[in-house]
């Protein structure tokens, strides 16, 4: 038998086996779905959701559709990912440079942070942040105030822009028992669940970024900074013009995969009751029973988020890629 024929036969066999497997799954799914009377179209997305969501970037009420609820969940995932991404980057770079510091106390402290945080499950850290760090916050009547920001066990409130008379005005958050004896009124609110999630995600991802930064800076050969000094560049100039561009090339690819992992990790929101994409889709799945469609949508949306993150970081990567080596 000639090689080409054998190659073809093997591939055909594989395709056939896979085809049979899929057919098997498909027939079963069709049988099961019909037997159970589960809907198989996406029409449910236009039905009224009926449940409420406590944190939303767009207007949403229980009268909105399932489709809109899903968008609310998606935007919440984006919100948490972007905020955590910013904080994690700040923490990560700070801790990474601290680990490289010649001061032993500082570098050991940073090493302890990185070592502990990286070796604990993220879920444990989220639960810890929620139950231990945020639980002692006072009720709305005894909130902490600073510069117009309000912090209490109902969330973190920031001043927001509003347009009461076609004119932008600042909407200050305040607690007024006459308006609402339970909660702070006005401003823009980040729920405690979101705060716990963002806090834990930033600390966790920050520890990974710290290691990436350290490896990146260490990858720049020592001769580079010595050469820069020899050419009369100051230490700051050497850092900005010589070390950073070279280090960033090494740092960026693993940094991007950290951002991707973080976006996926934000799905742990379901454990603290934050209405992210995963939690909202869980509720929808439960109410409609449309397991196949909902899971397909969730998978597609997470994939889209990953691709979007990649696209954004690629733009930055292209800026770094001036001149020569990549």
């Amino acid at each position, binding site marked *: 038998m000639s090689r080409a024929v054998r190659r073809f036969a093997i591939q055909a066999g594989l395709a056939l086996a896979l085809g049979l497997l899929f057919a098997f799954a498909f027939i079963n799914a069709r049988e099961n779905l019909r037997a159970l009377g589960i809907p198989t179209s996406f029409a449910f997305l236009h039905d009224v959701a009926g*449940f*409420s969501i406590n944190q939303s970037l767009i207007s949403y*009420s229980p009268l909105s559709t399932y489709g809109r609820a899903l968008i609310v969940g998606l935007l919440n995932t984006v919100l948490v990912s972007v905020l955590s991404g910013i904080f994690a980057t700040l923490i990560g770079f700070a801790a990474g440079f601290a680990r490289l510091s010649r001061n032993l106390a500082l570098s050991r402290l940073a090493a302890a942070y990185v070592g502990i945080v990286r070796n604990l499950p993220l879920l444990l850290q989220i639960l810890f942040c929620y139950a231990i760090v945020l639980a002692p916050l006072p009720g709305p009547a005894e909130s902490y105030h600073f510069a117009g920001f309000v912090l209490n066990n109902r969330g973190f409130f920031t001043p927001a822009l509003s347009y009461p008379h076609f004119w932008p005005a600042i909407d200050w958050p305040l607690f007024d028992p006459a308006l609402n004896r339970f909660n702070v009124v006005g401003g823009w609110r980040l729920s405690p669940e979101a705060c716990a999630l963002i806090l834990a995600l930033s600390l966790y991802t920050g520890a990974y970024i710290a290691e990436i930064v350290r490896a990146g800076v260490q990858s720049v050969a020592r001769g580079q900074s010595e050469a820069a000094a020899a050419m009369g560049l100051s230490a700051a100039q050497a850092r900005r013009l010589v070390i950073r561009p070279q280090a960033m090339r090494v740092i960026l690819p693993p940094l991007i995969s950290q951002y991707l992992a973080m976006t996926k990790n934000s799905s742990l929101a379901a454990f603290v009751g934050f209405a992210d994409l995963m939690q909202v889709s*869980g509720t929808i799945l439960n109410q409609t029973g449309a397991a196949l469609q909902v899971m397909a949508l969730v998978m597609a949306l997470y994939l889209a988020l990953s691709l979007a993150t990649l696209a954004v970081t690629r733009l930055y990567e292209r800026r770094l890629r001036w001149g020569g080596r990549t």
Partner: protein
Amino acid sequence: MNPRRPLNLIRFFPALFAILLGLCAGREAGADTLDATRARGFVVCGVNIGLAGFGLPDDRGVWRGFDIDACRAVAAAIFDDPDKVQYIPLSSKDRFTALQSGEVDLLSHNTTWTESREVGQGLLFTAINFYDGQGFLIRKSLGISSALKLGGASVCVQQGTTNELNLADFFRAHGLKMEPVVFATADEAIRAYDSGRCDAFSTDASGLYAERLKLAHPDENVVLKETISKEPFSPAVRQGDDRWFNLVKWTQFALVDAEELGVTSQNVEEMKKSPNPEIRRLLGQEGDYGAGLGLTPDWAARIIKAVGNYGEIFETNLGKDSSLKIPRGLNASWRDGGLLYAPPVR
């Protein structure tokens, strides 16, 4: 690299698959649930992960509760042994999938009977065994007596329940604002309420009494008198198996009829000699009402002997003999002003 090499390793795939499939418990949930149950030797019952009074393992891991006794009654009817039950704890979120997929024969999970669950998810609810309504648990210090005063409050609630939807409905209907704080389990929700995250905790009134026991200071919290919804609980089975549906349904009816006729687990043997034809029919002394269900004529007598009548089950698990002390209320017999009314066995 040689292109064909990996396929030699592919040979191991079938072995891997065989191991995986071998681990799949071959549980026959085909068309006839009763035959499958008999062949297996026990009933598989989907129950709440843990709700005091309805279904909760005790210190020695034995499941006890109102929903548990519903399962035990079915096992007693089939096997004459109420312990021939396997309990699968299910979260509210995935209880219906478990029933649909054939993982459990019967869902006895303080589940509210609604139209969409029955029509849209391929289930059949058998018969209402508990009339409940959604209420609120609040701190006494708030000094509130009506849920209508909760406008603007944060309310902790469990995800994937009718409670979540009723809550939204109630506040919308009264034009009030509310911040729902949604958790996957009742435990997490009550914990968040206890930590001050919410002003109120909302679930079915029966559950409020049970969850209140978990608080650090149960006495500092009260259950508001009013209820905001109808929550009729019922066991559920899969659609498409009428005999099994009837068996579960009539198990419940037999419990209610027994209470109405005064048959208890204590006196069931003497009652067999009773001259009352209704009692004689129920206990299998006249006519054969078990055959159509696939059971022997004394099916109801077995159930009552094993788990007691409805009243006994209620009082041990939820009522005055339990730590919950829930009043009979709507769950009293129709003769006593309640809603319990079962068709007669004849």
